[in-house]
């Protein structure tokens, strides 16, 4: 089986927000909607303070609470693990948005534009179907499907890889098949210590954060 997985290396992310911009460009999201968001977190207390940049978004969970609660079946999960929204089915009740522990879902009540009036490029890409419904990161599912149809490998070939990963200038973001032990993401997870956010909620997110290299002792202990 395939299970698409995203990795963010917290040691590498510099908070440049290029992934956020690339996502907005690729998916034409309106102002205030960031399917790929980068948090700027300050952790600790003076003088031991650390600044951490944390890319977040839909975690494409194994057991997505958004799908469980969705009354219209608009939210579904593909066999490859990607959680999708059918904008034609969604009633915009926002139940999924309050069920998501990652604040990954947005509902835009009315059209909004970066500079008030609709610009030419906003006009070209405006989608009425996204108004009044839930939206979120799709892992650029159209790029993945296009790539697979053309014999490309998502996470390796840029044409088949989510826009945020392609744009990351620090190579902090990686994407690939988490079920393939030889994939780039499996290798990264094998070589590094990682965690998933809000693990205690039991959603099984497919978004991993790397925070340190594994040392030999860890390997022997199977960590």
């Amino acid at each position, binding site marked *: 089986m395939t299970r698409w997985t995203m990795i963010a290396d917290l040691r590498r992310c510099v908070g440049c927000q290029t992934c956020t911009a690339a996502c907005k460009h690729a998916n034409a999201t309106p102002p205030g909607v960031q399917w790929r968001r980068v948090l700027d977190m300050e952790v600790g207390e003076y003088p031991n303070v650390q600044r951490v940049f944390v890319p977040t978004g839909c975690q494409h969970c194994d057991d997505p609470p958004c799908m*469980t609660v969705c009354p219209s079946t608009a939210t579904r999960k593909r066999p490859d693990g990607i959680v999708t929204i059918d904008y034609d089915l969604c009633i915009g009740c926002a139940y999924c948005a309050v069920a998501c522990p990652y604040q990954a879902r947005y509902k835009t009540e009315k059209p909004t534009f970066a500079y008030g009036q609709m610009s030419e490029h906003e006009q070209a890409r405006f989608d009425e179907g996204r108004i009044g419904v839930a939206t979120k990161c799709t892992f650029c599912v159209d790029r993945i499907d296009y790539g697979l149809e053309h014999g490309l490998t998502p996470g390796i070939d840029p044409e088949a890889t989510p826009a945020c990963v392609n744009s990351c200038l620090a190579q902090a973001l990686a994407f690939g098949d988490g079920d393939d032990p030889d994939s780039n993401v499996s290798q990264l997870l094998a070589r590094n210590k990682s965690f998933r956010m809000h693990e205690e909620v039991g959603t099984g997110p497919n978004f991993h*954060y790397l925070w340190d290299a594994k040392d030999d002792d860890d390997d022997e202990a199977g960590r």
Partner: protein
Amino acid sequence: MSYGPNPWQQTNWDARAAGNFMGGGAGCGLLLFATAAGAQGTLRVVLVVVALALIGVGLLCVWAEIGRPWRALNVFFHPQTSWMSREAAVAPLLMASGAASLLWPQLQPLAAVLAAVFLYCQARILQACKGIPAWREPMTVPLVAATGLAEGAGLYWILAPWWGQGNILSWLTLGALLLLRFVLGSAWRRRLAAALRPASLRAVDRTALGWKAGSLLPLALVLIGAAAPPLPSVAALLLQLLAGLLALGGGALFKFMLVTKAGFNQGFALPHLPVRGVRRG
């Protein structure tokens, strides 16, 4: 311990969503209580009509909130797992059986059972929200259900005395429900405190006075009414009216607060910090 983006109050569900829990809870509670108390004659009709009206207004509130109201029928598509679909599926049966019971009183117990199911669905809707710690707390289910029942009992005692109905047993039941609601609410608050949810806790505590006034004060009135020697009819009526209003108001205030003030998400947290450069001790 992280000090990143702190939890913030969810904004997806506003007063309109709260209206569904307020109207639906009170309406279902009233239908149940009116059936259990054996309301008769005109009072029975009035209580059933008020109950259905409250439930209907609650559903209208939700309809006014959804982004695509003309697709509202899609709400029925996922009863396998969605408590919202289940609530929606019960609603027409409840409204139909309730309306039919106006003509055929023998159908009222069926409507009452459906009201109980509807109320339970509402409580589970909130508890299924994994993104909101104050809602996903398991104690939310009995608390929201007990709140609806106490509100219904309060409404009954606002209306029943005008028709000369309401006996000591239903008066004491109001007191028992108020006590149950207060005990469950206190336990729910303790669990929030133990789970370190300070933002939600602050919102809860800001309405603590209203919560206590809506639970303990009417409970005291119930005890006074039960223990005191027979009161003049006007005094008894005022006592019953006040207890009912407080029970109703306290429940409505709690649910409004729960949805619109205590619905903080859990923010973001990092169990580990990135190790860059020289390792920290």
